[in-house]
């Protein structure tokens, strides 16, 4: 049977010096979907996306992207397949301009064609509403703007799969609204995997939700299903 999933993980485990961060995770993400990955702190969300984009090598299990085995593939090659990743901790090139930050990703795909690159970079910056800051050094931007720049860096790569690790952290109310708008506008074009704590954002943007707890998938379903799920409630309430 041909897979309809864009991304699949099969029995992925990760062990950090005796500590199980991921236990037999099976995770499927169909193309075109906006998926949220939620769970309490330490549930293994960042570890899971780390194994997907290659920052972390899984102890066992396999990962398939677009039907292709990528478990042992080098990070940069996965990115070249169309995966974009924004860091949980802001990781921009602080001494380069905002423009150059985005342009780096654009040029990797489109080469050094000046006009084409300029157009795509400005478009990405405009989508997160910071086009007017293009000439500023990224390090001089406010924290919220740096988070938006991170997103623009991902957008600039026109990814097939866009993984965002806590994108709204540190954003103002207005910026969060803009972010939700952005996700809605992307849905359908890009598959999005969102790690998010802000339930409001999750509920309004995600079509489907995966809940991770103690390194394994606890439940999956729509927002409403999750809201009603007793296990999910327990996992969250148990911690709180």
């Amino acid at each position, binding site marked *: 049977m041909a897979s309809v999933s864009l991304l699949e993980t099969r029995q992925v485990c990760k062990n950090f010096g005796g500590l199980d961060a991921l236990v037999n995770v099976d995770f499927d993400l169909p193309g075109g979907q906006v998926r949220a990955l939620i769970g309490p702190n330490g549930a293994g969300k960042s570890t899971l996306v780390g194994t997907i984009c290659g920052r972390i090598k899984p102890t066992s299990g396999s990962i398939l992207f677009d039907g292709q085995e990528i478990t042992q593939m080098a990070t940069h090659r996965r990115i070249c397949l169309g995966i974009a990743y924004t860091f949980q901790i802001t990781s921009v090139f602080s001494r380069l301009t905002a423009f150059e930050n985005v342009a780096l*990703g654009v040029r990797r795909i489109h080469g*050094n064609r000046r006009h084409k690159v300029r157009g795509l970079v400005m478009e990405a910056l405009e989508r997160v509403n910071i086009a007017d800051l293009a000439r500023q050094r990224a390090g001089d931007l406010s924290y919220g703007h740096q988070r938006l720049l991170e997103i623009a860096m991902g957008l600039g790569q026109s990814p097939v799969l866009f993984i965002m690790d806590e994108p709204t952290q540190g954003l103002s109310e207005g910026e969060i609204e803009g972010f939700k708008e952005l996700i809605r506008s992307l849905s359908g074009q890009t598959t999005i995997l969102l790690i998010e704590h802000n339930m409001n954002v999750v509920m309004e943007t995600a079509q489907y939700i995966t809940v991770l707890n103690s390194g394994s998938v606890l439940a999956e379903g729509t927002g409403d299903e999750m809201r009603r799920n007793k296990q999910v409630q327990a996992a969250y309430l148990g911690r709180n």
Partner: protein
Amino acid sequence: MIRPSRDVSLHAGVLAALLLLFFVTSAYHNGNLARIMVLAVFAMGYNFLFGYTGLLSLGHALFFSAGMYGLGISMNHLDMTVLPAFGMGILASLAVTGAIGFLALRTSGVAFMIVTLMFAQAGYLTILLFGKYTRGDEGFVIQQAERTLFGIDLTDPTNRYFAAFALFAVSYLFIAWAVRTSFGRCLVAIRENEARARMLGYDTARHKYLALLASGVLSGASGAGYALLFGYAGATFASVQYSILPLLWVLLGGAGTTIGPLVGTAFAFYLVDVSSEFTSAYLLVVGATIVFLTLFFPQGLSGELRRRLAPWLP
């Protein structure tokens, strides 16, 4: 972004100024400038790795001397003429950089500094070990009569100047071009944040390796050019001191700028040359000036120029 015309006019201006200087300065400064241009190629090679890619090597003397001995030994022991011997110099530096880069780039930061330093020291000692061919520390002369290219006597001051200029111009334009390509910009990204550059889909290991190769070959070209134009190859040029000098020149001139290496090399040369005329304690003057510059010109001479006057400086 940056308007290209300013870049191009800067590069053209630098090269034109160097051409013009030949006609307006004395024979003495002509000689110095020829030397500075050859050594600036070494500094530019160093800057490509350090200033643009962010890798601080303490082993570039080995790449310089690989070029120097590649040419020198080819001419003196294999009876080659200038052009193929220069090619041998390039090949030798490429081979040495390729092998060392393969190992050294497994490390980064201070470990990279020490690994390159150790390989260079081993290279220096190897030159002494094969004293039969290299004449060790004493070195050897490349005879004046053999230093001709297409019938042009490279030991003539004018020809020497223009040969040095040609070597400089080719290297300078290569650097000016390379840092504008997406490859060059990726090097800057690696310098700033390697993990992020990888996460943008760049094969940073390959980029660093290629940057090191280019850096090593430019250093080797400078070494071969030095041996060719000044007629001497010796182990002194493989010693630690000659690994620290390009670092110093680049930092004085401004790391990560295209004209920084030239500015730094020229500045360091004239600092020694002028101060040693007035005092036998010229090292004190040199040392104090270096301390002063780091205190008040933190980004080097052209880095400071960029910060204060010309932010567009490439």
